[in-house]
């Protein structure tokens, strides 16, 4: 059962990845691109989790956690930059 479900999930998440990437390239505004980047981080976490289940290895958890944290900090820093023109006030 899992052997058939995981490839389908891979396909769906990869499609999601491509759609977000398309939005990142197309824009049209800076907030759109940041939102696309943020979504790409989350999609990457989804791919990593799927990989972890498929390979039966818990080692990808740390990578997922780091991407989640760095992604959030990156998004906040970029938004701050748009709001103030400066990251550290």
């Amino acid at each position: 059962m899992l052997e058939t479900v995981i490839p389908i999930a891979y396909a769906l998440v990869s499609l999601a990845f491509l759609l977000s990437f398309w939005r990142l390239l197309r824009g049209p505004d800076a907030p759109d691109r940041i939102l696309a980047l943020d979504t790409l981080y989350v999609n990457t976490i989804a791919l990593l989790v799927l990989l972890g289940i498929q390979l039966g290895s818990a080692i990808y958890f740390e990578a997922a956690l780091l991407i989640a944290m760095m992604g959030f900090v990156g998004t906040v820093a970029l938004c701050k930059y748009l709001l103030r023109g400066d990251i550290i006030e």
Partner: protein
Amino acid sequence: MIDILLSVLILTGAIFTFIGSLGLARLRDFYTRLHGPTKATTLGVGCLLIASAVYFSVREEGVSLHEVLVTLFLFITAPVSAHLLAKAALHLKVRSLVATPPDNDAPAE
């Protein structure tokens, strides 16, 4: 039994992740696009992470709950990023389908 539960969780997660990005690509203005990734994608990845937690708890001895940490983190940070992005978009006067409220964020102090 566990297999079916895992499959359902993984499929739901993947479908929600896909729909979130579909919304990001398909909808017409920034403020509506914001909804897809904030809710659908967050729940989708949450489902995948819970599937992972269940999988590792069943496969190995002892419970594996550290995936819950990433889930919690994502559910806490997603609305914060969304709020900041909306604030930034209002500040930059991004094109919207409907009238936008005034930007009350005074220029940098």
